[in-house]
């Protein structure tokens, strides 16, 4: 598993994502997010479907977190946080499963996306998630997006990171 985590980290960095490995405790996670988002006025917290509720609950009262954001607030918020369905080592991608509360919007609308990934949900290659044996075959049923680094374009000449989707992607690997 350690090898998968390291490969994931190398490839995610290459794709211009930020990666932090932290202990899977509510204090470590809360501290990390508080540090990273301290200048943000509006944070939207999406569901952490594949994480223990004990990790997610303490995030609700972080400064800046909107309790029940309206769509207008969503369209202007600065940071989106959600849990990942899986990580993909060979490409450094996080795979997000949409459906639960605000996961689609937090991984898309805000310029800064923080995604929480359990270390034991990293697979070697994207196709592994299409195996019915993997994670109870959920990869074959859910609405998914494989996210590899921040949104990017080369249409305006040089490579520019930060287009319609998030400009900054930070992956917190919870070990």
């Amino acid at each position, binding site marked *: 598993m350690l090898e998968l985590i390291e490969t994931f980290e190398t*490839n995610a960095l290459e*794709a211009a994502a930020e990666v932090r490995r932290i202990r899977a405790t509510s204090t470590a996670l809360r501290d990390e997010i508080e540090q990273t988002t301290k200048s943000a006025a509006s944070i939207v917290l999406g569901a952490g479907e594949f994480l223990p509720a004990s990790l997610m609950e303490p995030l609700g009262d972080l400064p800046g977190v909107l309790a029940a954001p*309206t*769509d*207008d607030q*969503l*369209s202007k918020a600065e940071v989106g946080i959600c849990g990942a369905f899986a990580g*993909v080592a*060979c*490409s*450094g*991608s996080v795979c997000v499963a*949409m*459906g639960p509360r605000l*996961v*689609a*919007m937090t991984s*898309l609308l805000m310029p800064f996306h923080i995604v929480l990934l359990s270390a034991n949900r990293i697979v070697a*290659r*994207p*196709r592994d998630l*299409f195996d*019915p044996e993997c994670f109870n075959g959920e990869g*074959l*049923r*859910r*609405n*998914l*997006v*494989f*996210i*590899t*680094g*921040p*949104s*990017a*374009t*080369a*249409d*305006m*000449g*040089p*490579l*520019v990171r*930060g*287009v*319609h*989707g*998030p400009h900054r992607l930070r992956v917190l690997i919870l070990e």
Partner: protein
Amino acid sequence: MPPATQPSKEITPRSVANKSDKRRLLDAIRMALDIQSPTIRRNTQTFNRAHYQATSLLPDYEALKNEARRIKEDSIARLPELVDQLRQVLEARGGHLFLATSAADACRYIRTTCVRHGAKLAVKGKSITTEEIRLNRALENAGIEVAESDLAEFIVQVADEQPSHIIAPALHYSQERISALFKRKFQTGLPLETGEELTQFARNILRQKFLRADVGITGANLIAADTGTLMLVESEGNIRMTSVVPSVHIAVAGVEKIIPTRREMAPFLELLAASATGQKLTSYTNFLSPPIDDPPFALSGKPRKNREFHLVLIDNGRFRMRDDPVFRETLYCIRCSACLNSCANFQTVGGHAFGGETYSGGIGGSWEAGTGRLQNARFSELCTGCSRCVNQCPVRIDIPWLNENLRDRLNREADPSVLSGTLTTLASAPEANEQAPPDKLFFGNYHWFAECASRFPRLANTFSKTKSSRWLLERLFGLDRRRALPAFPKETLVAAAARDFPSPVTNPLARVALFADVFTNYGMISRGLATLRVLRALNIDVVVTDSLPEGRAALSQGLIATAAEFARRAASLLDGYVKQGRDVVIVEPSSLAMFRRDARHLLEDSGQFERLRARSFEPVEYVVKLMRHLDRDAQSVFDVNRSPVGTRLFYHSHCQQKTIGCALSTEELLRSIGFDVVSSSVECCGMAGSFGYKKDFFELSMAVGEDLFQQVRRSEDESRPRALVANGTSCTEQLHAGLRRKVLHPIELLAAILRD
């Protein structure tokens, strides 16, 4: 549209998009060379390099291609059944499926759906299929604003141009030109110089469109029939915005995008990313089964509507393509653009010249003909058959074969000409291609001219240098007078070999039939003689065969019946030798490619093709194989100190030689002998057999060659030049034209440095 005989006044991408009239093809090439070429070259070559890098990192690249091909073959075979299954799945989930027989039919359905929702603004993700059906115009005519949200599509929408590339529609635009375009169209004083500023500017405009749009329109890379899942690949986040933010989502896709199961999307994930942009995965790869279950999004003041999903599948000629034994293969295309990026001509002029109203590049002709008229595929003449796209295609489509077939069908529509009839009779060429234009018949039956000329070589050489003869050849056959013609040798290879090497080798290690291909037998015979010398030195018995055309030249001109007849005759000749236990060695790479690759389409006897494919070799490839077999060290056979051209080499392998996998062995052998070798990394020299000889394409051919010439210059410094080594006859001509230097074939070099 300007009439055929009048030169068009102002040439714009739109004015030359339809190339059913050849004049517009020539105008488009000029426009692209004048304005777009440096940007296209940089961008396509960046993609191409990334593609090679990314595919080399895929541990199971070849297996993934096989898997992808199998899935596509199966899908197209079962297409009607899959459409029915998909309809049931979607309807059970509350979605809608509409199978549009024509572009107009599709536009009508989408327009009606938008109007029913009172839509004022539709935001679009990138979809080339909606360009094919001209959807924007249909919606705009109904008073609906269409916002293209992919930045490249945004640029071409602002500029009112057609896409020049299937995944990067504004690939022909430099940053400077985008900046000038935006300043002019938006009348803004904002600083719009850097990539960041331009992106920010477009992003701000489009963010408001996403949030306010009534309808989102996307394409689909693949659709799974068992779950109704769309696979959507993108890097900017605009497709996510388009498919998730507006409540009404319409996906528009060619019907060929359906595959049986969601599980079978797996092999395409990495394969598509690597083949397209050369990434491990693109920034966003979406798997959506709409209508999605996320709550609808609405800014205050906008009604909150339930989510609604429509899948519009486009036939528009695709079921007809499915019934066509040749063009069915087009439907396997996953539109990755690898065939565009690996094409030397496309790298030089892009899709506004090498493309039609919607589709471009190697595969583009088949799409344009299949979804429109055959004449719209005339631009596919820019496919030289160099075959560099063949190994790059993730679903193994034989793209040159499709283009040769388009050419064949276009040839059959040409007006009958007296010259064509005369030529066919004189050359005793198959009557099946009698109707083809004279230039095609000339190049396709070059062996006949070569054979006639070889009877009186001095006369022919003198005649071919006179101004009047060059004028005549240009007028009759489009043979550009600026090109040097190959000189005919005093005697043919067959005659010279019979005189110089009359006796068989006793107790030979192996026995070989050296095929007297047209270009070696009537042209560069020293290459054939050098092959004889080297093989005999290795104790190989060599016989030289009769000289026959193998059909490669005819095939490249779209004379398929002629090519098939020539291939059958030559294959039967060579198969006779193989059955006697001889291996076949062929000097000219394109002739060899016929027996290793092309002939599988032309020979009825597949056993014969397989035999010849396994037993035909390029001379140096054969030498390497022998030395490996004998476990002999290269330096024990060859002595680098005997080299007449020094030890510094620049080696350019032939395009088809690379495709059939016998270029690397030459490089390795030369290095192991002790040469200092720099190899070209261009896909093709630009001459590509007859292509560069044609008056219509001379400038393009030289522009393509410029990459190669520059690589040679960069590999040298003034005091230390490199000797040029190349395999192909036409590559040799091209290198000579560009650099005015002598070029050696590697086997000639090897013959010169044999130890005693």
